[in-house]
């Protein structure tokens, strides 16, 4: 339905002030319609055009009480709002979806916050690929449908992913394992850049990715959304359906996601694997098709000051691996079989299943809040390929072994987590948080190849943080944390025999010995925020830590995907990192700029160091790679800025840079693996909010320029510089009663052949995907209830 013109074009303007002064940077929100405005340097704001009608207006400003009122807008309105000073209630900050800016101004850490609109507008094959445009955020890619998170060049076990308040645990160490997260179920993603062990414990040494489902619906509503996605390059078809209902206090929601994609296409006819050239059929990366099936259920109860939710999810995916090279080993392919269909998933492939059950409860009182979060997870992963006798494995697979010949590796991990958190507002100026984290995991392995042992692991941490509102503009932070960790590794011996060194008996080689290790760690952080009108300053210093993984302690086998004989070291100490982090952000009506420099020192970074020796008894003639510790210095910065040329037209720039150097050990002077090269992204965006049948429409172009990466470690390859152009457009179409959100993207517009230094397949010269058209549609089933209500 089209609105009559005279009803659609009202303007609401006004002034927001405190008791004595105007408040620049206050956030004004109008519902329904989610109209947002921020006051300028004089505390003035304007929202236009808005249809006439009754609205709920909410005004927030850091350090002041929230102003909430209803307002009838029938003509041009001008209002005056006075806020009274109040100490910030941390709980409010945590649950407010649209107050990302406020969260940024109050934490001493450098963070990025995006919502589901951002993910939809930037959607790529997997969550981390969709987020990789953010400054300092990267993805270690494995084909078109999988990726692992990387923050400022650190990834794998150095980044913690928290989904719905529970640490996500898969097989993070793996080179070719993606993150088991449904990107359609991520309503809000907060990325903390830099060491954050204080709140998140071991592994948060590189940063944290916090993913939340924010689906507490408004009382007495029922509704849902339907999402559809299509990608041209790999012929991806995906859909995600979401439904919810809430009575007064009880609510339910459910989501189902299905995606299926074919082999992806690269702008190349062949791939040079070592000196061998593998021909591709129709530019397709043979056998990289995949599929994903996800389910989510939530049931919750909410009443004044108390909420509890049970969130259950099942993520299932199956992906093929590039058939011409299993890992890095060139493989002869049956082109008749593999090129028959682009959509089938042949060997080699993997299957992953991640089940999660989370209970989240919160009790909020006038001066305190308590959280209790419990989680159970089960992660199962199987790598499947036809049996090949590597090294001393028998030529033919024996019949009396307890696993199928096709199972190359299999892992089953059970994880139990329990976290409790208390927020106390003691004097009105001081907020204190106390927390306890507990996590127990048990990992079982199967299959013909050994890479990590079976293990049990227990981690416990206790922490206290304080936030002190020194003045209206200055917030001081400090925190302490103590951790205890225990790992028990089980013995593992080969299922086949290896000849002994000198004319001895053949024996079952022991790969891992029984091992028991205990770790203690003590970490801290101090920080400050200073916010004056358009200027926001932050500084943070701290220590973080990471417990060595079972693979780092006990690996003793060949990673056939990399031709490396990887050896753990059972004496490794916990990795520690010291970081000094700063953030300067300057905002005016027309121009905004932020710079976030950091320096980071690891006295004992755990590094898989390539030796010059080879080993035939345990390593089947492969090169030895030893886990070792060296001191590492890193520094870097991200810069982002935008300039509003006019009301509708914005120019933007994002740059990121990270430098790492090993200061000791065999590789003194070298950098670190998977180091992202410097990057500059220039963007131009045109936004138009005034059309009737098409609202919030945008058209934008990005040019991404990436420098060469010549600082490499063995066995990496130098990666040349490149640039790519991405286009995107979208808006909300209101042709009938259901507004349709559309976003269209073209990735790699010029179909440029380039290499991504942080891609798993970089080493065998697999270029990045060619031109890709991605279309995303979202239809809300009920218009009024597309916004969620978070007021307690």
């Amino acid at each position: 339905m089209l609105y009559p013109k005279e009803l659609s074009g009202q303007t609401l303007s006004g002034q927001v002030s405190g008791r004595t002064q105007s408040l620049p940077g206050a956030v004004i929100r109008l519902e329904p319609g989610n109209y947002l405005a921020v006051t300028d340097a004089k505390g003035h704001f304007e929202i236009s055009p808005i249809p006439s009608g009754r609205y709920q207006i909410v005004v927030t400003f850091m350090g002041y009480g929230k102003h909430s009122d209803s307002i009838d807008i029938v003509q041009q309105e001008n209002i005056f709002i006075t806020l009274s000073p109040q100490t910030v209630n941390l709980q409010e900050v945590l649950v407010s979806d649209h107050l990302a800016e406020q969260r940024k101004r109050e934490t001493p850490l450098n963070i990025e916050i995006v919502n589901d609109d951002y993910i939809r507008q930037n959607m790529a094959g997997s969550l981390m690929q969709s987020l990789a445009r953010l400054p300092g955020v990267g993805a270690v890619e494995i084909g078109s449908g999988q990726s692992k998170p990387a923050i400022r060049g650190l990834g794998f076990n150095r980044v913690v992913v928290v989904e719905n308040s529970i640490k996500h645990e898969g097989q993070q160490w793996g080179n070719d394992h993606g993150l088991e997260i449904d990107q359609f179920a991520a309503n809000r993603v907060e990325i903390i850049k830099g060491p954050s062990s204080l709140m998140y414990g071991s592994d948060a040494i590189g940063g944290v990715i916090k993913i939340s489902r924010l689906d507490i619906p408004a009382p007495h509503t029922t509704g849902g959304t339907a999402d559809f996605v299509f990608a041209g390059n790999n012929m991806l078809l995906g859909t995600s359906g979401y439904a919810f209902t809430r009575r007064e206090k009880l609510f339910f929601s459910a989501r189902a996601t299905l995606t299926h994609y074919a082999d992806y296409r690269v702008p190349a006819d062949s791939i040079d694997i070592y000196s061998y050239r593998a021909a591709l059929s129709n530019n397709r990366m043979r056998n990289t098709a995949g599929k994903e099936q996800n389910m989510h259920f939530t049931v919750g109860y909410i009443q004044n000051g108390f909420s509890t939710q049970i969130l259950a999810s099942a993520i299932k995916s199956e992906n093929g691996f590039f058939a011409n090279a299993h890992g890095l080993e060139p493989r002869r392919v049956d082109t008749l079989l593999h090129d028959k269909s682009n959509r089938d998933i042949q060997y080699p492939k993997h299957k992953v299943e991640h089940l999660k059950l989370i209970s989240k409860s919160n009790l909020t009182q006038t001066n305190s809040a308590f959280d209790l979060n419990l989680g159970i997870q089960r992660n199962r992963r199987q790598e499947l390929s036809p049996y090949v006798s590597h090294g001393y494995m028998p030529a033919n697979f024996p019949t009396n072994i307890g696993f199928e010949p096709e199972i190359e590796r299999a892992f089953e991990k059970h994880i139990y987590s329990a976290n409790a958190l208390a927020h106390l507002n003691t004097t009105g100026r001081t907020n204190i948080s106390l927390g306890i984290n507990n996590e127990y995991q048990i990992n079982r392995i199967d299959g013909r190849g050994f890479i990590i042992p079976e293990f049990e692991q227990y981690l416990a941490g206790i922490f206290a943080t304080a936030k002190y509102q020194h003045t209206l503009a200055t917030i001081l932070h400090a925190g302490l944390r103590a951790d205890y960790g225990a790992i028990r590794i089980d013995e593992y011996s080969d299922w086949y025999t290896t000849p002994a060194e000198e004319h001895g008996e053949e024996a079952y080689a022991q790969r891992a010995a029984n091992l028991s290790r205990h770790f203690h760690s003590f970490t801290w952080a101090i920080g400050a925020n200073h916010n004056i009108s358009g200027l926001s300053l932050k500084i943070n210093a701290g220590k973080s830590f990471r417990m060595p993984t079972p693979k780092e302690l006990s690996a003793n086998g060949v990673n056939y995907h990399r031709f490396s004989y990887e050896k753990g070291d059972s004496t490794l100490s916990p990795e520690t990192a010291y970081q000094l982090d700063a953030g300067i952000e300057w905002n005016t009506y027309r121009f905004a700029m932020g710079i976030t420099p950091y320096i980071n020192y690891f006295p004992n970074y755990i590094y898989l160091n390539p030796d010059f020796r080879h080993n035939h008894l345990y390593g089947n003639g492969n090169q030895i790679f030893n886990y070792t510790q060296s001191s590492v210095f890193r520094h870097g910065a991200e810069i982002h800025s935008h300039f509003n040329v006019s009301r509708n037209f914005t120019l933007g720039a994002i740059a990121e840079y990270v430098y790492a150097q090993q200061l000791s050990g065999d590789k003194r002077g070298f950098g670190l693996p998977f180091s992202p090269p410097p990057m500059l992204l220039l963007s131009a965006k045109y936004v138009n909010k005034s059309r009737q049948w098409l609202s919030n429409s945008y058209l934008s172009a990005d040019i991404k320029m990436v420098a060469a990466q010549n600082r490499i470690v063995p066995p990496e390859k130098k990666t040349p510089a490149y640039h790519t152009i991405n286009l995107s457009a979208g808006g909300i179409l209101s042709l009938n009663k259901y507004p349709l959100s559309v976003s269209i993207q073209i990735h790699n517009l010029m179909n440029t052949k380039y290499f991504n230094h942080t891609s798993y397949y970089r080493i065998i010269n697999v270029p990045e995907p060619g031109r890709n058209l991605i279309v995303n549609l979202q239809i809300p089933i009920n218009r009024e209830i597309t916004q969620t209500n978070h007021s307690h």
Partner: protein
Amino acid sequence: MKYLVPAFWLAFIFSCTSIDIDDEKPYIDLNYTQAFPINCDTLYFGESFIFKARFTDNVELGSYSIEIHHNFDHHSHSTEVSECHLSDPKPAINPFLYIEEFEIPPEQSEYLPEITIELPEGNENGAFDEGDYHFLIRLSDREGWSDMRGVGVKVVYRD
């Protein structure tokens, strides 16, 4: 804090002094006139042959390994540009396997390995399977950079 400040200073000083690093891989030269075996060569059970190649590196070579394994199932591909004729796929019964590593004397930037490799008549299970084998050479330099070449060979009994 008392460790942090000196640590950062130290790190800064270190990071300002640029250290020359070796970022070049070693090279296995099979175009070397005496190189043996090369792609499509034939080796004989019950006889020995001399492995010859030319290894080079910009700084210092490290070690190398040699592996001979069957390729009756055509599972893997040689790294060589030219294809040689493979026999039809067949199941392995008693395939021959050889894996050995060799260290290169220090301070060599060029090295000509000459290794005599004995191919036995058979083992306790009798004669070895004749047919397509892979001859895999892995070379590393002292810094841990590596090169790998896989050549397709036939290993048979001499009539």
